């Protein structure tokens, strides 16, 4: 009696656990059912939004940016980055100073002058002297000399002369020498991008029916028996009755399936054997028949 009671008690306890398990599983399944339509909707929305971003070029931009990032990473050591971090406040100060409206205006004006560098006449000593009579030139000279003074002061305050900097300076001077300065942009100018090749005019079957680059008719509905005959002639094939039967069968099959028949399909719809097909069209029968019948090339999935 007692053991029976214990067993019953245990079974009772177990049945509760089983019920709980079933309940949990049911809840999980319900959640799955609930989430499926939500996921479908969320995914559809995400696809639409991301496609819009994609078509605007956001992803292409990020990919390119990643390339730039990679180049920066390759070009800089961690020590460089640390230095950059230390100097960041100074750099930002410079940026702030440079982006004051009057400074930007000067930069814009200078850039404008550079754009017309070709039209600028070289100045001899006398002309230069004469030019200093101009109020604007005087002001500019004053400013330049002030800038030069500050640079000089900075350089003198620096510890030892920096050979590398001097070299760079010399190189720059050389590069910016009046004669070379004019040669430079011409030499460095990138070759004009090759003009896009004019698209090959689509070849046309005799009769002026447009064709694809693979030699198949662009539009099956533009086909006539005359067109078929002329394509066959190009393939050195004379269309007799059994060959015409295959062409007609291929066209009829295309009308229902909207796909060009392969060899197996041709043997069925035209009730011939593969051997017959190769006898009538010795080279690539399915493709040749499609070509003559004005149908697209029979294709695999890739």
């Amino acid at each position: 009696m007692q053991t029976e009671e214990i067993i019953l008690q245990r079974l009772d306890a177990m049945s509760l656990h089983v019920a709980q398990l079933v309940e949990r599983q049911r809840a999980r399944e319900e959640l799955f059912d609930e989430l499926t339509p939500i996921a479908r909707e969320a995914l559809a929305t995400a696809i639409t939004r991301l496609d819009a971003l994609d078509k605007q070029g956001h992803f292409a931009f990020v990919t390119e940016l990643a390339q730039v990032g990679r180049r920066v990473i390759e070009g800089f050591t961690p020590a460089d980055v640390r230095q950059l971090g230390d100097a960041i406040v100074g750099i930002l100060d410079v940026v702030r100073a440079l982006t004051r409206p009057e400074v930007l205006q000067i930069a814009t004006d200078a850039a404008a002058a550079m754009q017309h560098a070709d039209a600028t006449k070289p100045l001899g000593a006398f002309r230069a002297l004469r030019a200093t009579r101009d109020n604007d030139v005087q002001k500019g000279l004053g400013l330049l000399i002030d800038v030069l003074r500050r640079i000089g002061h900075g350089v003198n305050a620096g510890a030892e002369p920096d050979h590398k900097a001097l070299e760079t300076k010399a190189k720059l001077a050389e590069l910016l020498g009046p004669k070379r300065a004019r040669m430079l942009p011409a030499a460095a100018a990138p070759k004009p991008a090759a003009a896009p090749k004019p698209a090959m005019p689509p070849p046309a079957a005799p009769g002026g029916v447009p064709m694809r680059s693979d030699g198949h008719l662009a539009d099956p509905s533009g086909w006539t028996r005359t067109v078929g005959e002329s394509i066959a002639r190009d393939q050195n094939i004379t269309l007799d009755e059994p060959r015409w039967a295959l062409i007609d069968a291929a066209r009829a099959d295309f009308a229902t399936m909207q796909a060009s028949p392969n060899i197996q399909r041709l043997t069925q719809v035209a009730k011939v054997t593969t051997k017959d097909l190769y006898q009538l069209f010795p080279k690539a029968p399915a493709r040749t028949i499609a070509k003559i019948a004005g149908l697209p090339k029979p294709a695999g999935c890739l």
Partner: protein
Amino acid sequence: MKRIVILGAGTAGTMMANRLVRVLPAGWQVVLLDRDDTHLYQPGLLFLPFGAYREAELVRPRTQLVDRRVVLRLADIDRVAPEHKHVALKGGETIDYDFLVLATGSRILPEATPGLTGAGWRTTAHDFYTLEGAQALHRALDGFHAGRIVVNVAELPIKCPVAPLEFLFLADAYFTQRGERDRVELVLATPNEGAFTKPVASRLLGGLLAQRKIEVVGDFAVSAVDGARRRLASYDGRDLDYDLLVTVPTHGGAEIITRSGLGDANGWIPTHRETLAVTSAANTFALGDATDLPSSKAGAVAHFQGDVLTPNLLAAIDDRALSAKFDGHTNCFIETGYGKAMLIDFNYNTEPLPGKFPLPGIGPFTLLGESAINHWGKLAFKWLYWNVIVAGKELPLDHQMQLAGKYAA
């Protein structure tokens, strides 16, 4: 009690049965028929020859895969009699139906190629579309250290059209890892023009074969195999020697379809390309590999067709017009070896294009390009197959192909 009978408890049939029992109105019963209790995870067959999967991972009893509201019958079918609206089993029993769903799949017909199943069959000539074939090929590859492997597609259509290419990519990686790649020649002999027939894929992937040193022999329609001499002959008079032949034999529909007069000469079922209604019999639908449609014979196609067939069957029950339309949507992973894979997504009208899937710009899957994430997706697909696809659960994906995230380039 009204009844829908589904023939074939493979990917398409099992999925349809599990879906239908959930949505059918009261008073409807689903009977699922198959001859045995072994459901095979067919995508796994590709990996078996390279020892990447074991047989036990690839088979499960059909009885475990169906919802308990589905009546699963394991029996040999004699024939379908549309004129009596019943399916006759061997032994005389008949099962009446109101609607019939044909999910009888495809099978390989190696005997259709003269000589293929003669000398050397399953020693130097193998298929990997059956469990026995893939296992025999695994043993053959294990003992193969030098020579010429020819992968030959006998005739189109075939199941999983990218499988031959995947096999070659995996073989390249397999022999490279064994340090024997320079002693093994890899050749693809295909009745297509080449490995790629569509412009975008040819342009983007054309270089992949040369890079992997895979030779392609195009327009090769095999007419006979000389197993003793290890030589393939083509209809246009070319010969091709091999040391090991990996054949993708001619495919055809199920015998029962031909026996019942429902199929064409190769046993494919004439099916409406959009509604999936069978044109050779009334109150009958077909999906998966069994149809004569120009869509790929692949599990993903069966899945997307299921999304169309479910509402269309419900419409047929209510005597409404069949408004859901199949667009030929296919997507599939293409294993390229070295831990990478590609993904392609296309339909009747749109060729595979590059881009990201399913989220534009983000993916995580890359279309028409190699990535490790694609490969992980292919591996994770096994769980998805057993627990979601075959179980008939919904995926949050539209059955219609979407152009979002794809580039025309």
